């Protein structure tokens, strides 16, 4: 008999992941430690890798892989990202910056981060991206 030691992720993250998986809006899901625990296919199309290829990543790992970068091309400190504001200050935040996909191509994006708060604990954040260049065509983003 298998034991019961494996715990499910918090239900808020499970439902958020299922929701994001159904969207064509590129989006990240991070846990309360800042670990990227999921990104959807639309984000994968923008960044050139699917989640199934990368798996979960620490902030350091995905930052090194994709950025983001400021207007001067320098990497933005993790503390200045909307995601970090959502996680550490617990309120929504937004920003505009550049990310670099897996082929090295750069994309201008808007980003909005929303905290995910459960019934009894802070769970993490959802980050939505909106490409400002032709990469919008990758995800069919044309309202």
């Amino acid at each position, binding site marked *: *008999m298998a034991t019961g030691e494996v*715990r*499910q992720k918090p239900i808020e993250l499970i439902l958020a992941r299922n929701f994001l*998986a*159904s969207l064509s809006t590129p989006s990240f899901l991070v846990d309360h430690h800042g670990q990227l625990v999921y990104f959807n296919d639309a984000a994968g199309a923008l960044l050139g890798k699917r989640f199934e290829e990368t798996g979960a990543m620490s902030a350091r790992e995905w930052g090194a892989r994709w950025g983001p970068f400021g207007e001067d091309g320098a990497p933005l400190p993790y503390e200045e990202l909307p995601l970090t504001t959502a996680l550490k200050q617990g309120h929504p935040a937004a920003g505009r910056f550049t990310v670099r996909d897996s082929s090295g191509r750069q994309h201008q994006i808007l980003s909005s981060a929303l905290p995910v708060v459960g019934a009894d604990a802070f769970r993490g954040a959802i980050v939505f991206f909106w490409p400002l260049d032709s990469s919008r065509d990758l995800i069919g983003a044309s309202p």
Partner: protein
Amino acid sequence: MKLTVWGARGSVPAPGPQTTRYGGNTPCVAITLADGALVVLDAGTGIRNLGLTLASEPQRIHILLTHLHLDHIQGLMFFAPLFNPDSEIVIWGPEAPGVSLQDRIARYISAPLSPVEIRELPCAMSFNSAPPSEWEIGPATIRAESIAHRGPTLGFRISEAGSTLCYIPDHEPALGAPLDPSQPEWISGYGLARGASLLIHDCQYADEEYEEHLGWGHSKLSDAVAFAACSEAERVLLFHHDPLHSDDFLDSLSDLAAARWVQYGGAPDRIALARETQEIALAGQLLGGA
């Protein structure tokens, strides 16, 4: 532990000649632990019949509520021990933002829906939000986890002497994404159900009915069986039957469930649809009513 199904119907009671074999009462399962302690899972209309079987001597009864939808609490104020001044009733349920468990239940047990108020009940009654960590009731260890259903909802894992019962009567784990056994930690309820001696799980809909009820918080048959297989439950009791499903229709669902279970490598006699008055002894044999 020994358990008795007092109600296996979902949504609303469904009495009548079409439902005599599986029963029409809404969810209630009673567990008798090795020391004789009584734990009751949900307080649907089935709890009324349970109450009638309990002697009038003092009782300490734990009631574990998965959530507060009416079909899971409707029988509570008809539960005889509530009217026994020598009884002690301990209610456990899900936490919700801003309102206590007692206040939420009092929305039902109060005017104009009820002729009595909670404070008028003669028994000793207490209310507890299920803690995030395990707790003990007599010789049993209880674990609660939030699961995918509409509104704050728990599943329970109850372990005693090497046997484990998992109870997830209202559950839609495949909503928005298919069940993926390679990432079980992302499956709602998986940790509760994993390796359970007996899994009692939602199976409200036939597959062809599900499309019209997507997002209502309940499972279709194929998802219920897939969840049970993924979690490696030893035995499965499918539960929360739709009120429109007659005994004959449920018989056909039972056959389909067994066939699917066999496809996952299970034995056909290890999966069944729950029937009212059914008794099961875990770590023992089916006692009757199956």
